[in-house]
Each structure stands twice: as structure tokens, then as C-alpha cells.
């Protein structure tokens, strides 16, 4: 779906450029048939949005949310301040600590450093999306069993990073876990418990479908 849309839009952009150059009037795909050069010019400037609020649709844990946000609003702030989805934590807010980790198309990212407007069209998974039908995900379960948290503030980010890591590495060594979770910090120092939890979750998940 997305690919198709991109192709269409790429063709549109190309046509606009041709128009601006004053090049031939044959337009690919017939998308701009009937437009004038002036209309094409307007179309280009319409591609610039903001600085005021812009309609943005975010797909979070399988559900679409329509929002009106300034381009400067990060994905993290959009969820926490505008949708009241507050499981992902805001700590350093500088792409360093990992507390805001979400999955974007199943890959872990720092949501504090992704603009909400950039996240449009991507599948976002947060800690709220891991438990299914009241059942903790294997990673959540393993964190709980191994006492892999103290104050708990880094935990949602660690669980998301760990979930993504185990989706790519189903049979990790302790060293691989250490390196794989290098983008998250725990100031209480619960790393030993987190590594144990990751190992146990890997075992629990073997052959099983991973949530998220």
C-alpha cells in the first residue's frame, strides 16, 4: 500500500519539477492534467507545512489517532502530552538514555528524537501494546520474575529494546544481550537482572509468536 502511494507521489513530484522547469507538457500518469505552471508552483509551496499545527495521523499499537500538532512536537511528546499514552518515559530527551524507546515498524527508536510528523505512516508499538488479553508478553513476564527493575523508570524502554532485540536474536549469548541493549541506561544499576530476564525471555519465546 505504502509503496504504491510513494510511487504515485514520486511521479507527482517529478511532474511538478518538470512544470517548474517549463519543460514539455506531457505529464506522467496524467496526475496533473489540466494544471497550469502556477498551480504546480502552489503545489510545491503546499508541501511546506507548519510552523502551526498540522493534521497528523499516528498508528499506535494498531490503532489510528488523528491529531493536530506543530511539526516540532516529538513522537514521545505527542503520545505523552496529546494522547495520554504515558508508558514511554521522558528522561534525557536527547537520544541517549533509552527510556522513551518505542518500536517503529518493529525497530527500536528513541521517540524523543523522532518528530511526530515523521512517524506518520509507520507502525508504532509502545509498552502499552505488548500485553495481549491481560497476558504479559514473555519479556514483561521475565522482567517481573527476575526483579529486573528497581525504581522502574527505565523499564518500559528496556522492555521495548529487549523485545526488539529478541525478535532479531532468538538465541543470544549474555555478551550479545549486553551489546544489544547498549542504547538503554538504568541508573539504579539493575543490569544483571535485566540480562537474566532477557535470557529467560529468549527461552520462553523460542518457537512462540512474539507480541508487538
Amino acid at each position, binding site marked *: 500500500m505504502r509503496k504504491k502511494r510513494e510511487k504515485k507521489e*514520486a511521479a507527482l513530484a517529478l511532474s*511538478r519539477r518538470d512544470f517548474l522547469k517549463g519543460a514539455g507538457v506531457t505529464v506522467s500518469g496524467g496526475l496533473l492534467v489540466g494544471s497550469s505552471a502556477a498551480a504546480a508552483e502552489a503545489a510545491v509551496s503546499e508541501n511546506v507545512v*507548519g510552523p502551526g499545527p498540522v493534521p497528523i495521523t499516528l498508528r499506535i499499537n494498531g490503532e489510528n489517532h488523528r491529531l493536530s500538532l506543530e511539526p516540532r512536537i516529538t513522537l514521545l511528546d505527542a503520545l505523552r502530552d496529546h494522547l495520554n499514552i504515558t508508558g514511554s518515559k521522558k528522561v534525557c530527551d*536527547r537520544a541517549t538514555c533509552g527510556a522513551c524507546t518505542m518500536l517503529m515498524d518493529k*525497530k*527500536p527508536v528513541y521517540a524523543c*528524537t523522532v518528530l511526530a510528523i*515523521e512517524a506518520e505512516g509507520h507502525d508504532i508499538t509502545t509498552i502499552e501494546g505488548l500485553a495481549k488479553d491481560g497476558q504479559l508478553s514473555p519479556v514483561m513476564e521475565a522482567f517481573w520474575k527476575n526483579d529486573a527493575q528497581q525504581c522502574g523508570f527505565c523499564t518500559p524502554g528496556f522492555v521495548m529494546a529487549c523485545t526488539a532485540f529478541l525478535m532479531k536474536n532468538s538465541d543470544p549469548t549474555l555478551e550479545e544481550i549486553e551489546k544489544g541493549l547498549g*542504547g538503554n541506561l538504568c541508573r539504579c544499576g539493575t543490569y544483571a537482572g535485566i540480562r537474566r530476564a532477557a535470557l529467560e525471555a529468549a527461552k520462553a519465546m523460542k518457537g512462540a509468536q512474539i507480541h508487538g
Partner: protein
Amino acid sequence: MQAFEYASPRNLSEAVRLLSVRWGESSILAGGTDLISAMKDGISTPKRLVNIKQISELGGIEFSPRNGLRLGAMVTLRGLLDHADVQQHYPGLIQAAEGVRSEQLRNMGTAGGELLQRPRCWYYRNGYGLLAMHDGKSLVPDGQNEYHAILGNSGPAYFVSPSGLAPILIALGATVTLHGPRGTRRIEVEKLFVTPTRVGQREHDIQPNEILTEIRVPYRAGVRTATYEVRQKEALDWPLAAAAVALRVEGGVIRDPRVVLGQVAPVPWASPEADRALSGKRPSEDVADAAGRAAVAKATPLSKNGYKVQLARIAVKRAVLSAVQQGG
């Protein structure tokens, strides 16, 4: 963060048209891992962001022995790490990308952005500018300079070049393509980096309305590569010193060595002295050590960073040993 306009063009020429001719008015948004934080800190205050991630011609990795490697600027570090040809032919580049120890950053950060990230110098990050000027004088020589330059630091620039990929790319003779309103130009990665000599000068040879579109890395059969980073902690942080090496071993001796240090000077620091110490020699621990010594022989540490001389020496030694130990 100050409010800004936003655009996400689908092709290069539209992107260039959306950019300003003046620094500070518009910024290119790639992975955003450096830029967004700099904007929150008020270090960068663009009125317009141009997201270039939707431009398909900036993506893709291609390799052939004849043409070498072409990396689209928007290839993520994760995309680079997962590519079989890069793994097979450029292990030193893989080691450098692994140096970014956060999977989140590897998923977001791009190859082009990695080269063009701004220095980590804490004076710069706190608003004193690249030259850390206060009352017409640099704050670095008498200040907190433990992470600053030990080479190329006669002033006024004392920050260190933060790129992890640049040293190995330079050692391999890579080039970058820059696209601007007057067409494209291709320059060596080494020439992309400049030491600023006056306030307001950028540390890269790039114009505000130019876009780094691709990185090209030549391929030479039998080249062995390695990157070695010395770091304070294993988790996410920039290294204290780094070295990248490309060389061949022919008839039992080292040929065409190229040693480039990172994190020690305002630019990635090529060391012809280390190259000479290696060229024509049989690989051994002593020869690798001699290259390390030669690389730092002219170091001029500041008041608090003398320890970096030793780290840089060892980084070179270990990078050389790692490279020669590869088959090839």
C-alpha cells in the same frame, strides 16, 4: 525547541530548492539523532526543516568489485551493518559502525548524517560555538579539555571530529557526492573535513543548500581493514581515541598502508608517519607498535588530556594488528 516549517520532498531538486543559501535558516533532517537534540538545546535554530528520508535516490547499497561500494547517504547504520557485501569486503567499516553502541541510534542514524554530525565538545554544546570563544579567547586551553584534541590543536579549534565512519572511509580512499543548486560535485572524504580558523566557519566543506547524497568506497582486492576504538564504557558514548587502518600484505610485507585516527583532532587525522613506519615491513607486534608511536610523535596534548596520547598510540597498534591478522 523553536517552531519551524517542515517539508518532506520526494526528489533532490525539490529538496535543494527548499533549502536556504544561509546557514541557520534551514536544516536538513536525516536521522535527526544529532540535529533534534541540538535544536532542543538551542544550538541549532532553523526556521525550516527539510526531511530528506523520502528521497529514494538517497537510499540503497550497491557493490561490485569493479565499481566498489556505493552507499546512499540515507542508508541507516543498521542497514550498513546488515549488508553482506559490506561485511565481506569492508570489515573495518563494520567495526566502525558497531562503535555506535545503541541499536536505537543505528536504526535512526544515517551514513551521511554520521559524517556530518557536529562535534561533542561541551563548550560547543553549551552555546560557545565551535571555537569555544569567550571574550575573544578560547576557553579550552585553560578549561575542561580532557576530551579535546591532541593533534592539529594549535588553535583556535580544539574540538575533536566525532565521526566514527570517517577514519576508515578516508583510509579506503572513499569519496562523497554533494548535490547543490549548481549540480553535483564529488570530493574525497578527507577533503570534506576542515579545521575552522574563524568564528562561524563550518567544520565541513559543504554549503547550506548542498545535500550529501552518497558515499563511494573503492574496492581493491586483498585490502585488509580494521577500526579500533578505545572507550570509557562499552555502552553508548563516543570513543576517547580511535584508529582505522587499510593495508595489503604481499609477499609477507605490508603494502599501501593508510592509517587515520579519530577523536584526536578537529578533523579525522591521517598519519603519513604511521604509514611510513608500516610500509614494506613484515607485520609484527613491534612494527604495529612503531606505527602507533609514529602516529603520536607530534602530539601536543593540552593541560588535561595527556592520557589520550597513549590511547591513540594503542588504538593504532591494535587496528594494525587486527588488520594484518585478517586473511586476504
